């Protein structure tokens, strides 16, 4: 080993400074907690929470533990993020492609959308949808049905619930269809490599994914019925819908604003990705006789995706993190339920804030690891 003073000193100073700062903080924290009579520990997680949450995916009421309250918040956060990511991706890809359209009007329309939504703070958009736009919706008793099954009211969106019989059979049929498609794809590739024949994989896949579940209805005894929400009068002026699934206005406002906002960034990523593929690639592919579809599928997309995916991953992460703004409109996400209500009740600031931060940290790190893996896979395939 070759120890040099020049190498050691700066590192030592930095580390000492970091350790000193942390030590100072911990020391103070200990003294402060002793003075206030708070003891440090995560034991409170198993205590009874005794507060209620408006909207939860799992069964929860005040008699459950703080840990379950944490789970409720986490699931709500994930729900918003997943819906937001799906909508934002679809919208973003459409707008990004529209930005490249030769059609002047479509192009400008997409540009207008991007410039408009990108330059307004997300929080303001959430407030706008929640406090201004969705408040203008009709009361439950005045709501008009959309396609006679959806009801959009000031109290939220009511959609029919699916009621399944023998759901597992249906589920397995979908799984079987997916597995079959994967096998057919592998087989088709092998055939193409060995014999040069092409099998219409796409048509077969579509057929399979429809036919197998359909068979499960005909043979497997799967039944599907809808439970349509019905207006019910509670008192003379108070109405609610019963039955079906109700999506609270907070959820709608949040997903709407998150996806509209993030879609602008995804659109820019998509545009940059497609523009980033060299024009010569397209022309070369066309000149060796590939059809326009094949050019897109085999030449443009694989190269464009390599440019698109890393920044888009960042946008997904941003969306997940931005979903914490839910606290501003009282959507019971992780921040509101746990870092808000639970913190108020227990007063365990350090524990709760650290758990919350750690949760977001692990969420974003896991998404970025997943996306890095996918990215790597694509990058290798290209060689």
């Amino acid at each position, binding site marked *: 080993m070759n120890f040099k003073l020049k190498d050691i000193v700066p590192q030592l100073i930095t580390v000492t400074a970091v350790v000193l700062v942390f030590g100072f903080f911990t020391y103070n924290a200990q003294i402060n907690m002793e003075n206030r009579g708070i003891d440090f520990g995560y034991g409170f997680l198993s205590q009874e929470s005794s507060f209620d949450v408006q909207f939860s995916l799992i069964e929860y009421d005040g008699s459950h533990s703080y840990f379950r309250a944490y789970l409720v918040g986490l699931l709500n956060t994930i729900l918003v993020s997943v819906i937001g990511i799906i909508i934002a991706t679809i919208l973003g890809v459409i707008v990004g492609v529209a930005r490249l359209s*030769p059609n002047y009007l*479509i192009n400008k329309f997409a540009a207008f959308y991007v410039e408009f939504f990108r*330059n307004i703070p997300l*929080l303001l958009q959430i407030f706008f949808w929640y406090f201004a736009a969705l408040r203008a919706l009709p009361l439950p008793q005045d709501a008009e049905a959309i396609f006679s099954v959806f009801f959009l009211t000031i109290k939220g969106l009511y959609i029919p619930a699916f009621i399944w019989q023998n759901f597992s059979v249906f589920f397995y049929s979908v799984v079987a269809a997916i597995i079959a498609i994967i096998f057919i794809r592998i087989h088709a590739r092998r055939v193409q490599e060995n014999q040069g024949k092409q099998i219409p994989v796409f048509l077969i896949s579509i057929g399979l994914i429809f036919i197998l579940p359909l068979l499960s209805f005909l043979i497997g005894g799967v039944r599907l019925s809808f439970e349509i929400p019905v207006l019910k009068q509670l008192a003379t002026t108070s109405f609610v819908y019963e039955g079906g699934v109700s999506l609270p206005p907070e959820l709608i406002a949040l997903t709407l604003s998150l996806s509209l906002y993030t879609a602008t960034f995804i659109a820019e990523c998509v545009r940059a990705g497609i523009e980033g593929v060299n024009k010569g690639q397209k022309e070369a592919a066309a000149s060796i006789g590939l059809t326009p579809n094949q050019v897109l599928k085999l030449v443009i997309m694989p190269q464009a995706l390599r440019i698109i995916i890393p920044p888009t991953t960042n946008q997904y992460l941003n969306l997940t993190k931005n979903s914490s703004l839910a606290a501003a409109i009282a959507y019971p996400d992780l921040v509101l339920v746990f870092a808000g209500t639970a*913190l108020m009740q227990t007063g365990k600031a350090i524990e709760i804030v650290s758990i919350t931060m750690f949760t977001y940290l692990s969420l974003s790190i896991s998404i970025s690891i997943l996306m890095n893996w996918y990215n790597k896979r694509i990058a290798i395939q290209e060689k």
Partner: protein
Amino acid sequence: MNKINFLKPEKSNLFTFLYLGSFLFFISVIDVFLNSFFRINLTSFLPNLISFLLPLIIGFIGLYFIRIEFSGIKKLDLINKHINTNNFNAILSLLIIFIIIKSIPPILSWFVVDASFAGDSKDVCSGTGACWTYIKVWMRRFMYGMYPNAEQWRINLSFIALALLGSVGYFATDKFKKYLTLYYVVIYPFIAFLFIFFFISGGPVFFDFSYGIIAAILSIIVGFFIPSKFKFYYFLIVPFALYILLKYFLFFEEYIELGKLEGLNWVETGAWGGLSLTFIISFFCLIFCFPIGMAFALGRRSGFPLIRYISIGFIEFWRGVPLITVLFMSAVMFPMFLPADFFIDKLVRCIIAISLFEAAYVAEVIRGGLQALPRGQYEAAKSLGMGYWKMHIFVILPQALKLVIPGIANTFLALVKDTPLIFVVGLLEIVGMLNLAKTNPEWLGFAMEGYVFAAIIFWIICYAMSKYSYNLEQKYKTDR
């Protein structure tokens, strides 16, 4: 006259198709126009659905007829090329034209025609349009928060002075151009700080100022005797330590009271708010996050493993958590980490939190620029005998920063857009004030106007920033 095949428009019957097509197209546009502006439905005798879709169908047929390649008429070719290349595009173009026509009357009537501007009470707002009176009445609150009305000239004066001082760069002659960087990086932030701390808050600036000067002079004198290897670390730590020592340990708080200027009332930061607070926070975070971010970007690419790991940890931590939890931490967790009698103002805590948060993003952007530079630049600088700092300051950073102007601008934009989040700690900038005003019992039901107003302001700020960054990018673009 040739035989006309209506299914296949040709050049031989150009004018027939042109007249017919444009006639149909204009009929469809006029139908939608009358429908939306004057509520006249020309086709009301038809069933609902057909009457709804008719303009689309007619317009589509019209566009189909005028889609003739190489017609020789310039304008027609231009239209065909831009909005009418194929059936799909024609329908989309029509839809967009119709949506624009349809959306103009309601927007116009809400914004201008039916809106109320006059008066200063809620009674004038009975129409269906927007109530801009509400904005007018609350304007001071939206701009200055709870800052006392009588003192608001201080904010105005400071901002005007800072804007004037900030525009010095445009008027500088060549002789002074080389000092501009120094001016903008060191002197201008310092002046801004003085203005905001001294003038807007009415704080005890004199003593603070003098402590700072004493600390600086002392540390510079001692600095001459420090070996140059450690000078950087010395100047990083000692002046601040001295300042804190002087301010909080050697001197007493009573003297600070003496430092207040006669006649300026102290306005606590809790009363600050509105758009001016947005500017103050954005400004300070912008100033602070840049050097911190740069330091961590260099740290992440440093050859010292310990420094590198600390930098990576810092960057990944802040990038992994949402800003709202960081602000939560600054509000509820941070006071626990400080000595019991040590109080840091809410606004200052906020600025620290946002600066650290954005610094991580700035660090990643700058790292991208550092990585994009060819190795030759590093090697050339080293071969000239430059040390680490000289190499980075004179060769690497100027080039790397040039490369990352768009990224940095995006981060700064994100910073400005993140300022409304400070509602978490109870500071109310413009969006927070809107939420407060909206719940005022005298002015219920005007949420829409408020949000539209704030949205317009933010949009203008952010759009101007992004355009400016684009100009900068073009200005500093160097071909390699």
